[in-house]
């Protein structure tokens, strides 16, 4: 998780992607392993919260907000998101626009990631956690 934050500060997008996939694979590994301990499941909970909420909705948001001022010509944060999400044609922006776009699309990839019929495989996580008596409330709350 520290790598994810560190590479986001550096804004090394390939490394951010790698860090996300590493966390996701660890999370899936914990859920797949019948011998996972309570401690493992709390680690899975931490990963789920980090990817599903803290990183995607707060940390990544700050990373974009801080850099939006470096896009030239000037563009507002809302307009940037609107342009990317509506697939609006654009031209004439500097490299920062493309970098932020790539980063934002990667974050969107997390927000749209579904497995076994639920967002970030949360339903399976909840079921396994309940079976092992680990958690009584929603991990993303």
């Amino acid at each position, binding site marked *: 998780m520290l790598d994810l934050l560190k590479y986001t500060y550096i804004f090394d997008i390939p490394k951010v992607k790698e860090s996300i996939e590493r966390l996701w694979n660890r999370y899936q590994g914990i859920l797949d392993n019948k011998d996972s301990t309570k401690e493992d499941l709390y680690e899975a909970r931490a990963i789920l919260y980090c990817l599903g909420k803290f990183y*995607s*909705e*707060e940390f*990544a*948001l700050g990373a*974009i907000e801080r850099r939006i001022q470096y896009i030239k010509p000037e563009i507002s*944060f*809302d307009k940037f*998101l*609107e342009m990317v*999400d*509506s697939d609006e044609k654009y031209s004439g922006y500097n490299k920062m626009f493309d970098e932020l776009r790539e980063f*934002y699309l990667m*974050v*969107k990839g997390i*927000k*749209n990631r*579904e497995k076994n*019929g*639920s*967002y970030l495989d*949360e*339903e399976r996580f*909840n079921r396994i956690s309940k079976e092992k008596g680990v958690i009584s409330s*929603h991990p*993303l*709350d």
Partner: protein
Amino acid sequence: MIKGKIFVIKKRLWKTEDLLGFKNDMILVVKNTTPDITIIIDKVKVIVTEINSPLCHAAIIAREYNKPILMGVEDVTEKFNTGEEVIINLENKTIIKC
């Protein structure tokens, strides 16, 4: 100002079956959206959420499908029930019963 009938989902982790009964032009009131929303997104008049982040799933979906959204309405899923008529003011960020 947007007026309409609301469809409220009170649980946070909801699925396609929880959308049963959603009719065209209803206002969807949820804690947050899940990827299942895409099934009914064309019928949604407005999305109202408790969560409030420009990068939350609901905000992304609203921009992608060009739907109005009212975010950050505290306990909205507890205060309202399916079938009630409401008026939404997106500028003042309010939702009131008719």
